[in-house]
Structures are given as structure tokens and as C-alpha cells.
């Protein structure tokens, strides 16, 4: 069980968390959504595609698990470690999932892509060798309007191979 915290409506709350390995201090209204906080902090790769938690464009990894950052309050992220799409590439080298998305033409407009990549990151961590059905199920909370998903599925398969072949993913957590 999480600890229950009570805040006043207009109270400013100071929170500390790690984003992509960097310590961040942030002062916020208690009601502010994590997605808005991350975007204000400059992580604009975290996108907003709906207001009902259907689309998954705002997916990030929080304490090792994928979350839709529009369903998390910034104050709930106090003390957490967050990984966004900006934190995947290391020293100018793309993460294997990013490489696979590029190679397989798994994006068109690119708007769903950061969320999709982060969901794939979580999926492959949980299931390193997923079947096509498991991939489709795994990304079904992330909407894409351009690609028809076929090349995204192919990209996740390719990323799975790349990762299992020992191209160690860059993991901060």
C-alpha cells in the first residue's frame, strides 16, 4: 500500500525524483499530472494524445514499470525513478528498440512513437522473446493511427532479437 498524503488545494509541493538518471527538484500544485510536469521539465518526447488514458502517447517507465504519465500525479512521482524516451540512447548510440523502429519503418508521424517505444521497452523486459500475439496484446494500450501496427510489431520482434543476441540494452535502472 502506498502511503496516503493529504495536500491543500493551493499548496505548492516540492518533489524530488530522477528522470533519465538526473536528479530533479520540482515544485508543483498537488493536482498537476506527471505528464505535464515532465513536459515542463523539458522532456517533450512525452506526448499527450488524449485526456482519458486511452492512447498511451505519454507512456514512461516509472520505478521499472510502464505507466501512462497522464494517470499519475506529479506528487505521486516523488522519490521515483523515471525513464523517458530521451533517456534511451546512450553516447549518441540508439537503443536497439529505436534502431529497430527505424529499420522496420515502424513510425510515420512519430507522435505515438516515444510512448510505443517505452511500452516495447517494458514488454521486452518482461517477455524477452514474445510471440506476435503477445506483442500485439502488449502494445494494445498504445494507439497508432498511421502505421496499422504491422511494422511496429515487426520492429518489436527485431528488437527482441537484437537484445537477445547480446546487444545489451542501455538500462539505467
Amino acid at each position, binding site marked *: 500500500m502506498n502511503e496516503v498524503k493529504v495536500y491543500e488545494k493551493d499548496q505548492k509541493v516540492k518533489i524530488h525524483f530522477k528522470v533519465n538518471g538526473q536528479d530533479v527538484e520540482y515544485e508543483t500544485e498537488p493536482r498537476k499530472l506527471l505528464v505535464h510536469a515532465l513536459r515542463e521539465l523539458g522532456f517533450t518526447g512525452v506526448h499527450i494524445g488524449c485526456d482519458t488514458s486511452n492512447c498511451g502517447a505519454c507512456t514512461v517507465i516509472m520505478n521499472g514499470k510502464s505507466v501512462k504519465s497522464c494517470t499519475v500525479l506529479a506528487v505521486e512521482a516523488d522519490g521515483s525513478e523515471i525513464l523517458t524516451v530521451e533517456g534511451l540512447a546512450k553516447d549518441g548510440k540508439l537503443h536497439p528498440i529505436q534502431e529497430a523502429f527505424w529499420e522496420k519503418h515502424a513510425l510515420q508521424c512519430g507522435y505515438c512513437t516515444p510512448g510505443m517505444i517505452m511500452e516495447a521497452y517494458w514488454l521486452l523486459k518482461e517477455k524477452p522473446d514474445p510471440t506476435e500475439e503477445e506483442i500485439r496484446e502488449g502494445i494494445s494500450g498504445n494507439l497508432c493511427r498511421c502505421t496499422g501496427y*504491422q511494422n511496429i510489431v515487426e520492429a518489436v520482434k527485431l528488437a527482441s532479437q537484437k537484445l537477445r543476441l547480446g546487444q545489451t540494452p542501455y538500462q539505467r535502472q
Partner: protein
Amino acid sequence: MSRYIGKRIKRKEDPKLITGQGRYVDDIEFPGTLYLAIVRSPVAHATLKKVDFSDALKLSGVVGVITGLNLRVENRPSNFPMAKTELLYVGQPVAAVVAKDKYTAYDAAELVQIDYDSLPAVTDPEEALKDDVKAVEGKGNVAYRKTYSSGNPEKAISEADVSFEEKLVISRVYPAAMEPRGVISVYQQGFLTVYSSTQSPHYMRRYLLNAFADKVKDIRVIQPDVGGAFGSKLFPYPEDYITVYASLLYERPVKWIATRSEDIRQTYHARGQIHKVKVGAKRDGTLTGIIDDLIIDLGAASHGTYLADIAAQMLPGPYSIRDIKVEVYGVYTNKTPLDQYRGAGRPEATFVIERIMSILADELKMDEIELRKKNLIKSTPYVNPFGVKYDNGDYASLLNKAEQVYREMERKAEKLRSEGRKVGVGFSFYLEMNNFGPWESASVRVRGDGRVLVIIGAAPHGQGTATGIAQIVADELGVDIDNVDVIWGDTSTIGEGYGTYGSRSLTLAGNAALLASRKVKEKAIRLAAQFLKSDPQELEYKDGKVVNPKTGKSMTLKEIAAKSMSVLGGVWRYKEEPGLEGTAYFGLDNLTYPYGSHVALVEVDDTGFVKVLDYYAIDDIGLVVNPMLAEGQVMGGVIQGFGETVLEEVIHDKEGNLLTGTFGDYMIPTAVEAFNIKWEYMEKGKSDAPLPAKGIGEGATIGTPPSVLRAMEKAVGKRLTKLPTLPWDL
């Protein structure tokens, strides 16, 4: 020699997008930006009495509230961009709150009170046609009326061996680009810079200047990265004007970004056509007559009428019928105005004519491929009964190729049926028109370091056009594609342009870039003649070099560029104008007419869930510059077309309340409903352009619905006439 054209080249657009470094409109910030929230009509039809925003103004951080803004914009509601006297649909802007941040703006918007007297609303287009309840006070509901007629279809149908009537319904859909619309308007003393999630910055500049010419000298429109559009970000929206007006009023940068709920309410809906058809044919399958009463559900404004015109003109499709009539009725309803969505009129035409072919085959108990072959146009070019000139193609070869796939899927279906499974195979053949003009522009500039910058007037937003155009320019100039950058989306970088819509960008902007590259090559020869002290007539451009075959001397494009730039502060002692730039504008004197076929094997389970087991598409779009990109367009388009066939419908209740106002209610396909597609292409029907491409942006949303619905129909053994057909309809 093609080093790049025809190859599956990886996209130049991708690196920033896969790393989160894309810059969409909401990612752009300016110091002192104000945020705008729109207060929208909660009802479908009412007299607007008063907008009370006194409580909103009391909220700390609120800068102001705008009400009653009316501008004259053609074909838009009289109360545009804000309702002033009459509320016409749920979601129509009524007021705008401007505040220091987004949260404050939305808090204040909730404090604005709208006082209104309800009026009866009309939402069903057939009801609207009766004109009993007026959608707009003081106006008849029939906003548009036109007849397309050829020959004598009444006589043809009365003399036919077989005839039937059917009502075909194509529901309203919502384009649902993943990025909601948004605008930032930055005021700088008489000038504006507007950043917009648009498909056409140049067109947007024109329409904003039309409205604000007395308030600004010029407007520069910049299109940042755009998260999809599918036709929905081309035409003027109320929020564009409201945001620009607010920035002029407060002399500050003002930002408005739609929430998804707002986007579903105000982004123009699409399709929304009913076709009541009467069809006659001979016993041998020859189609002899069609009469179609077409009702288009325009919503609360009349700017969508052209979609009925396209549907009517393309209704004959690839078949040689001459006795045909389409009566078009455009009606107002109390719903969001209607406009284009991927395919824009051709999906509607193709759905109707392909439904007619399949139903006719059933009526005659005839093989539906044989029926299509019997009616297929025998040679091109061909002028259809409404005067549309189909350019060229080999329709029969493509049909034969698709037929083989169809027969194979039928054998598979037969086997599955013998196992007791409810499966069916659907087939469609489509012919469409695209490359809507009139022209497009491109500028090719070789920099002093040899790097090539290409600026296009088209405004791609996900299609990968920049990669395709880089392939064209790199091949033409004989340079490495990594040295070619393609940019777009800024009215200050190229004089005029149109944008990206109607499957036009690769053909029109691509040919403009090709012609501009040729100008650069000519210029490179003239400059090299100076540097090499040769007669330009002796020189030729080959593989990225200007060569003198007599002397064997040569200079690469990079060397010519570098020599042009060599000494700062020196003099220019050559008898040729410096600079290696070329700009070209390119237009075609006809639209282009690609065609294709889709074949689907589907299974319907006991709950009515539709699963596609196999899917095949083939297109002839002339020269294919990058098969990977073209295939991507088809894959995405098929799944959108599938969504339109089994999932997607904008639903209003009788009072005009929107029942599908979120992604929780308006379902677009997820990866689970989606399926894999096998795609092939032919390159027989080339366009007249120097680079003989056509377009593939929309083909798949045109070809898919009739093939999937036909397959469902055969699986359940019941005639299907509506898009979408939902599980409980089966």
C-alpha cells in the same frame, strides 16, 4: 541511372522522432506565452442569450475573456469563429479564456456561464431533408443541390433484365490524428508568426491574412512536426482565428492546444453520406443503369459539399456504364461541420459502386470477378460519363492478378467453412483520382560545402515525403543522399506552395524538385565552363560531376560549389552569375488516376467480432520511388479502412449530444484488432510527369471498406449495407 529511386531507403525523418527530439506545436514555448482555453456549446441547437464571464475574470492569472468574435469566412457558419446569436452544434466555440497557464485557463473556462434558450435540433440527414426542423434558424436545410446525369438511366433500369434498390450508409467518422490540433500565434509589432499543426502553411497564411489584413502586415506560418492529419488539418478552423485574434489583442504569444475531447468535437468530421441506389443490368451481367440519390450530412456549415461532388463524379468507377444519374442533396444538421478525411469522396464512390457489383453478382448468381471483368473499361485514356478523364492503366492485368489471390483465398475459405467456421472472402477493385493541384514548388540549393538543401512547398506530416524527394534529388544530381537535406513547412523559405493533401506531394513536389535539380545542373555546367575555361557546349553533367569529354577534365558539384565560395572579400571575375540554386513550380493538366484491388479473408465469431485472417492489396501508382514508404501508406490505410468498416462511428443522439466524445467511446483499431497485410505493386499506369509517379496516400482507405464488408457479408450470409457494421448488426 537510379541509385536511390525504387529502393527501400530508410527515412531521413526518423532519428529525431525515435529519440523524443521531434518538435510538435505543443513542444514550442516562448517567454510570456499566454494560454487559451475555449468554452464550447454544450447543446446542439439554441438561441444564445448571454455569456457571463464575470466569475472567470476574478480568477487570479486570467488575462481576459473573448466572446462574440465574428469574422466573415466563406462557407463557414455565420457565427464564425464563435457563436454570437445561435448555438449550432455541441462543441462550437462560444468564448475563449486567456490566462497565464494552461491549468488556470481551463479552471476559468469552467466558470463561464452560457445562458441559452433551447431550439429543436435535427441530426438525421434524412430528417433534415424533410426540412421540418431547421438546423440553422432562417435557412432551409438543403444547403446544396446538384444533378449529375448521363444518358437515360430511368429507361435503362425499366428495360433491365434485373434491377434492385438499396440504401447504402456511410457513417460519420473522425480522422483521429494522434496529435490533436494546436496553434501558437506570436505577435511582433505588425507581424505575426503562427506555428500550427497544419497540412498547409502557405494556405493558412492566405486565409488568416484574408481575415486579419487590416491588423497585420504579414503572417509567417510555420508548420512544426505534425502528428498526423489525414485531411483534417487542411482547412480553416475557428481556433486558428481565435488564437491569432487573441495574440493581436494582447500583443503576446498565445497558445491553444486541443484536448482530445475538444478535438473530437470540433475537428471536422468526415464521410457522412447516404446513397439510395437503383440499379439495372442485363442477365449476362452488363450493368445498364444507376440512379443514386446522394444525401451528404454537412453538419452546421456548407464547406463539405465538394466531397459529394467527388463521390458523384467517381461513382462509375472503373466500369463502362453510360446511363447514370446522381442527385446530390447537401443538408445542414446540428452537428460538427463535415470536411475531408483520407480519400475524400473516393472511398464513398468506391464503396457504392463496389457494393453494387457484389450485390448484382448475388442477384444474378454470377461470379463477382467475372461480373467485374464484363463491365471493366477496356482501354485508357477514358472519359467517364461525367467528363472525368481517366489517364492510363492496365486495369485488366491488375484485376487478373488480384483474381488469382482471390481464388486462392476462396479455396482456403472453403476448407475453413467445412470445419464449421464462419468465414468469407471479399474483393474490391478501385479507381481513384489524386494529385489534387494545382501545382507545387521546390527549390534546390547547393551550399558552398557541397551540401544540398531542398525546400518544398508541400507540407508532409508523417508520409516520409522528404526521404522520397531526397532520393529523387540525389539521383538527379548524382550525389550521396546523406548530403541532401529536405525541409518544408515555413512560408518564409519558399515563395508559394500548397501543402500535403490528396496524395500529391511526391508527384507534384517531387517533380518540382526534379526540375529544380535540372536547373542546378545547367547552372553547374555554366559555372564549371568558367572555372575550366571551356565552352559550356562541350561539357556534360554526369554522376555528380561536370565533365569535358574532350580534355578529360572534370569538377564535382562540390568542387564547383566550393570554388564559387572560395575567397571572402575578393572579387567575382567570372562571366557567369554565382550561386547554385534552382527553383521550379510543377503542375499537371489533369489529376492522376491510380487503381488497385483489395482481397480479404475474414472470420466472424459468434459475438460478431471480425477477425481478418488474410489480407492482400495491389496498387498501380505509376513509378514507385520508395516501396517501403508506399507500403507503409497502404498498411496504415488498410487498418484505417478496417476501422471505418467495423469500429468507427461518430454517434449523436436525437438531441444532438455527442455520444462518442473520447477514445473510450470512439474506437480506433488497436494492435489487437489490426492484422498483417501483403502488398504488391505494378508500374504500368504511369503519370505524364517527368518522374511518372501517381499517389498512394489514400488508395488503401478507398479499397478496404468494400472488400472487408463483402467478406463479412459472405461469412454471415446476410446483405450488409452500412459502414460501420458493428457486432450487434451481424
